[in-house]
């Protein structure tokens, strides 16, 4: 069924048949339909990579910018128009490799966006090198004898930085993914949704089955507002936990803190220069 977020003509995607990105794309669109969000109010700020191409396949506003910089662009967008719903989207290489510094500092700002990271534990678009989340021992087209670096743990790092919403999902379970995404969108403040998905072309280790076998959902009894408990979860390696791992919605968001909005709530595009005021400033200098 054609949703608000579909184009009149279905675009040909650049993804490999069987790739987890298809499910993620589908769920994102469904989630926004169910949330009754007007695509006019939505912006996808995306990086570069197979994951980031998602933004090309959604009929809405988008800024498909540079590899690694989606969070910076998203910050600029949201801060200039807090009425927009802003999604920063990219792959594990995009957000945690090239974009690692922005990941840290976007969390610190508590900018009210959803950060969706398609985590296939590999660099897909550049044909299969290790990504920061590649597990130790993974053999790749560049790490021929296997990765020996400690994998980047986005969940633990985000919690350590006191991120206000930290979740992990799996493209193989679209229902749960959708639920998590919807909560992330409804959450006020920075929300990380790290989504495991299989790369059928380059990741022969972390396959659909592997994710299926090596993940589980945190259950009802789990208190995701308990930071230490959340970190314990984040460090589990036996099976990787899925769900909303941590939540902390107490802080003001970035835009709420900005003085530019203290006396004037209008988004910047609706404002006009007051040359008289500037002239007065000069004269009083």
């Amino acid at each position, binding site marked *: 069924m054609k949703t608000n977020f579909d184009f009149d003509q279905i675009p040909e995607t650049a993804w490999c048949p069987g790739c987890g990105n298809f499910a993620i794309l589908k769920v994102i669109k469904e989630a926004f339909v169910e949330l009754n969000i007007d695509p006019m109010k939505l912006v996808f700020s995306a990086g570069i990579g197979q994951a980031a191409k998602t933004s090309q396949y959604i009929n809405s506003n988008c800024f498909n910018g540079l590899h690694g910089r989606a969070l910076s662009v998203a910050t600029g967008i949201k801060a200039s128009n807090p009425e927009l719903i802003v999604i920063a989207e990219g792959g594990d290489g995009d957000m945690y490799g090239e974009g690692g510094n922005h990941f840290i500092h976007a969390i610190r700002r508590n900018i009210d966006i959803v950060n969706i990271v398609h985590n296939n534990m590999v660099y897909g678009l550049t044909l299969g090198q290790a990504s920061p989340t590649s597990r130790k021992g993974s053999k790749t087209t560049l790490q021929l004898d296997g990765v020996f670096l400690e994998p980047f743990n986005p969940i633990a790092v985000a919690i350590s930085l006191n991120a206000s919403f930290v979740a992990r999902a799996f493209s193989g379970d679209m229902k749960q993914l959708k639920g998590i995404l919807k909560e992330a969108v409804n959450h006020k403040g920075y929300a990380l949704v790290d989504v495991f998905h299989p790369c059928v072309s380059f990741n022969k280790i972390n396959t659909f089955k592997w994710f299926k076998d090596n993940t589980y959902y945190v259950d009802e009894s789990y208190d995701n507002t308990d930071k230490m408990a959340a970190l314990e979860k984040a460090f589990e390696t036996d099976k990787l936990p899925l769900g909303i791992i941590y939540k902390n919605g107490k802080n003001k968001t970035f835009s709420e803190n900005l003085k530019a909005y203290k006396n004037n709530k209008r988004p910047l595009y609706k404002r006009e220069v007051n*040359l008289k005021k500037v002239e007065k400033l000069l004269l009083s200098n």
Partner: protein
Amino acid sequence: MKNDISIVLSGEAGQGIRTVELLIIRALKNSGYNIFSTTELMSRVRGGNNTTEIRVSNKSIQSFVDKIDILIVLSRNAIYRIENRLSENTIIIGENTFIEDKYKDGQYKIKDIPLSSLAKEVGGLIYSNVIIFGLLSGIFNINLNLIKEYISEQFSAKGVNITENNINAVIKGYDYGKNLKLAIQVEKNEEIKKQIILSGTESVAIGALAGGCNFISAYPMSPSTGVIQFLAKHSEEFGVVVEQAEDEISAINMIQGAWYAGARAMTTTSGGGFALMQEGISNAAMVESPIVIHLAQRPAPSTGLPTKTEQADLNLALYTGHGEFPRIIFAPGNVEDGIFLTQKAFNLADKYQIPVIVLTDQFFIDSYQSIKPIDFSMFKPKNYFIKTDKDYIRYKITEDGISPRGVPMYGKGYVRFDSHEHDEGGFITEDPEIREKMVDKRLRKMESISKESIDAEIIGSKNYKTLIVGWGSTYGVIKEAVEVLKDDDIAFVYFKQVYPLPNNTQKILEKAKNRIIVENNATSQFGQLIKSQTGLEFNKHILKYNGMPFSLEEIIEKLKEKK
């Protein structure tokens, strides 16, 4: 001493020389004197040796001079770095113990001032600065009430006691200064009292506000940081989103997000930070986002000399970013142009959806000038984005290459920016034909951009045989040199737009028999640009790259050497 006096304050970082500078230039200006002041710093927070030069003149001036008429010594080791600028006429004023014996052999006129004990009498060493302010006011015979007013204003927030102490301090200095009887004669001009004192930094920041800037993101870097600091101070009043980025890469991408959402955004940085922004600038070109970059140059490569001056980042600005795309580069040489060009940068960035770079340097940024009030009604800030309709496409191929830019939520269309080569809708394409059309479309903007280039300005004789070419911050010194030389054969052409070259470039340059270029760099980057675009060569290059600005004497001498 007559009509052109140069005072140098020399002391340690952290002593508050800038406070004295700001007080005295305002007092002098308000007494009807033309002033110019400039600071030369070491890269440190305390200690070392910084100097500030204040020129007082009967004419409008904007250049640094070597000569020192009055030297105020505020710390030990404050003379050796400027020793070669002293002459028999120099009056050295300072605490006896700060002036090394070798300067006391009679070659200079030394005036001992017991600064520390005077300050202690008032209440402590902290009052030294205000005493110096008083001293200078006394020397120039400034109205004492005016001086007291400033002090009251400056310190009122700190309570009655402190204000009183400061007033006592200023009077002590004032009396001391008057008693020196230095017989200063500088013609005053009532008109000047109406003028405004402005630094390079302030001119860029105010120009930004006049251009509608309501978003700035930057990472601190000398000498560029003042601009974001100024805007932070006025963030609430002018509704400016101000954010210190985690690095320059974030800043350059953040401002593109801001423009995308309808803000008018800029960043401010220096060479190293600008180098880090190269990819981001190329991105702006492809997504066709307007951006304004203030690039305050300092000597490079790499960390270089963080607090000194140079004009050596022009090439990186000219050839910024990977790939091929239009850009505009302005280089203000005085604070009026600082305001005018920065303001204009926003409008042109918006109109053409391209990067516009305002290229300054430490000398420009850290200098103060007094200027006539500016008529702001000549500025026409304009938002070029359109209200979109349902069929809106972002990268429509148009005759002039400009595709109307929409903003999300304004109108009925989706706004799709894309950094890949894209079709008119903003979707990835790999079609060679579309690629070619899109390259052509983007480059085509250069035609209109060139048409509205700001002409180079000729100063001096219209019938020049010798033409001196300068750009940006060398404006003041070349202008003054030409005025001093008063030679009917000589003119100066000032480029405030360095790229694209103004339309009158070829004509102006061709007319000269003898072309001399002046640049604060080692390889004459602007000269190379002119050669590659006009085919014209220079007969002489006057280049300086030791971290210091040109002095007036230096330029005059070099011009006399061989004109």
